[in-house]
């Protein structure tokens, strides 16, 4: 298995290089100038010499090939450089945003697992009953509802409900405090976004759990287990669910990786200073170094998550061996 992990990690290198080349080229194809946005964005006048000085300071006045070689050389040394926008190390910019994104991703995944697996299983076991219909409506609602809309609605609902119940409108805090500093404030900020993204995530996973369970429950070995006289609870928990979870785990892995950098709109709705918002800002400001680093981070997260998912396969299904 260790050999398998080593191979997978080594395969990351060409993936990263390909992504690096792609993002480097694409960013430079977008028309615009970070210095112009920075100096002229407010509408006031500025010194034309400042524009030239700004270009020189961030190094965009050098030939592309020099910039690319420097980027790749930095990548090989795990040095992503400094943000062209803020002048701070890219790692500082990302690390400042990673905790909240990671927390929402983990909480969202917990919400999704907590909802999707039990409901998906029940839905499959009670196929074509009213329970199945209700669960499927709930799932389709989740898939059809955009997270940002749900986010806006949930904030408004909380505001109106609290105003109606206590006379004072309440909304989650708009600034992040780490959980170890103030757990209540932290959770009161994170819980609504987690439910918002978790619902959609749960809906997709619920559909997957249901269809996988339906398929597994028709397998010969389930019939054999029943013939042996095993109780239904044991058949479902020990034999059916574990096997049915293979595609669900794949889906959960992909969604988790997406949640870390992809919550662009949800982060804006809840004023979360997360990686998704940083990503948009970096592209908007044409901050090449920061965008490049964020793409690399996303690639690493996806590769790592997929690796974990693959390893989980072996645990869920002992027939799977890594070679």
């Amino acid at each position, binding site marked *: 298995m260790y050999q398998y992990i080593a191979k997978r990690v080594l395969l990351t290198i060409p993936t990263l290089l390909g992504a690096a080349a792609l993002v480097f080229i694409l960013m430079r194809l*977008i*028309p*615009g*100038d*970070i210095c*112009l*946005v*920075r*100096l*002229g*964005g*407010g*509408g*006031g*006048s*500025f*010194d*034309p*010499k*400042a*524009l030239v*000085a*700004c270009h*020189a*300071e961030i190094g965009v006045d050098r030939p592309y090939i020099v910039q690319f070689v420097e980027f790749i050389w930095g990548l090989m040394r795990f040095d992503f450089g400094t943000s062209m*926008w*803020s*002048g*701070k190390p890219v790692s*500082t*910019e990302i690390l*400042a*945003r990673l905790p909240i994104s990671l927390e929402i991703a983990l909480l969202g995944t917990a919400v999704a697992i907590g909802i999707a697996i039990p409901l998906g299983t029940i839905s499959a076991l009670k196929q074509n009953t009213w329970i199945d219909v209700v669960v499927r409506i709930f799932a389709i609602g989740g898939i059809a509802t955009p997270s940002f809309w749900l986010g*806006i609605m949930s*904030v*408004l609902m909380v*505001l109106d409900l*609290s105003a109606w119940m206590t006379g*004072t*409108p*309440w*909304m989650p*805090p*708009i*600034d*992040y405090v780490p959980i170890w500093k103030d757990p209540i404030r932290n959770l009161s900020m994170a819980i609504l976004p987690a439910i918002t993204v978790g619902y959609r995530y749960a809906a997709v996973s619920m559909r997957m759990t249901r269809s996988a369970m339906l398929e597994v429950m028709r397998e010969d070995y389930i019939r054999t287990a029943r013939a042996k006289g095993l109780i239904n609870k044991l058949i479902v928990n020990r034999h059916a669910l574990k096997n049915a979870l293979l595609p669900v785990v794949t889906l959960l892995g992909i969604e988790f990786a997406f949640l870390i950098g992809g919550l662009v709109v949800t982060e*804006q*709705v*809840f*004023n979360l*200073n997360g990686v998704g*918002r*940083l990503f948009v*800002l970096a592209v*908007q*400001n*044409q901050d090449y170094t920061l965008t490049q680093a964020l793409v690399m981070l996303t690639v690493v997260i996806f590769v790592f998550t997929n690796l974990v998912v693959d390893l989980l396969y072996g645990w869920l299904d002992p027939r799977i061996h890594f070679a």
Partner: protein
Amino acid sequence: MRILHGLLALALSAAVPAWADEAPKRGGTFTYMIPADAPPSLDGHRETTYATVHATAPFYSVLIRINPDNPSSPSDYVCDLCTEMPTPTDNGKTWTFKIRTDVKWHDGSPLTAADVAKTWQELVHPDPGVLSARLPYYVMIDTVEATDASTVVFKLKFATSAFLPALADPFAYIYKKEILDRDPHWYEKNVMGSGPFKFVDYQIGQSISGVRNPDYYRPGLPYLDGFKAIFTPKQAVEIDAIRSDRAATEFRGMPPSARDQLLKELGDKITVQTGDWNCVDMITPNHGRKPFDDPRVRRALALAIDQWHGAPALAKIANVRTVGGIVFPGSPLAATKQELEQIAGYWSDIEKSRAEARRLLKEAGAENLSFELMNRNVEQPYKYIATWIIDEWSKVGLHVTQKVLPTGPFFDGLRSGSFDVTIDFNCQGLINPALDVGKFLPHSVYSENYGNYEDQKDIDMYQAMLHETDPVKQRIAMRDYEKYVLDTQAHMIMTPWWERIVPMRSYVRGWKISPSHYVNQDLATIWLNQ
């Protein structure tokens, strides 16, 4: 609706603050929002965004500033670090400022004239590799010297009324000489000033906070124990946050719809201050493209627009209000309504104006002209203005489509001249008409002009106006310049000037609105009635 109008009237009456006679209360932490993403750096000298000023002004002092008790005045300058406003000598070319001797830096060391002089030397003649973003403002300053520990002398290249406004630039924080000598980039990532609040913490991209400076040189100020400013780029978050009292206000300005919603939700728990805003959207035809090289076509574009009826209608949905010329409407140098009515695009008889527009278009062979109006992907008021303008132009037979671009590509389009006609804007930190109207100079002289034209007469008229020191003659020169750029050549077309609408929780006292969202942001006079 009637209730809403009643509340609106009640709240707007607070534009003349009702708390003026109240005794300020001390204490409390003031939480407000900065409606933007975090600024690139904390250095006021190199940045141009209001997000920098709203985040860092409470930590710094400046040499002179707009009177915080009268911030709506465009010309009431008072000392901050100096002891009294000086009278110039040498025919207006030498200004000697006496510096307060009771000012301490937040590290406890004394602030001297050497600090003030060094700061201004860096602003006017920055070291290589150091950005001084508003260098064109200081075009008249020749040298700055500290002649002793409490005296700073500015020598000008020429006398001009534009000097004091330039000196009152809200970004011109006074920095410590010792730090600037050691590392001119230090202030980009660090804060150390002599203002009413001491720096506590900057959470990257999220918030900044400060505590009361007990050694502040203005006795009794500030009233607050501290403040926290949170970056909230989305307007929906701001409204919800004010509603739920997560934050008390934001100081940039909100559109009428946000004001109305907050008044409806909060009633007397909210007050609103409003005023004209020193920002304006304008329309720039690309003179480098046909038929916009023809002044008749450009005049026709101006003549088709009904400013006088459009402005009040737009004010209901967009943050614009006052019809004006090239000078901020509240300034003594601004045109009166009668003077404006002499200029193309401001005629009182819109039918006559549009008939003339059609005639000019026909004469220029540009009847039924179709073109693209480039715009910036900013809701207020850009998209509203553009939609209105396109409708106005359709009334003289023009077929115009709007092309909305994100900020980066929009600026790229402006610089590269890849547009027919564009929405452009002018939003200056301080009302300094003589310099602000530089926007109408050709690009070779003024880098933020995107009209793609050269015009020596334009430059000569501007220089004559800038160098005129007699206010009456300068006003006449300004009228001639205005008539030339808006009518004779119609280099650009104005739209109504913006309206600044600042709703805040009623317990916030001591802040007065100004025509610029950059000034009066040190929070020293704010107190909380809680």
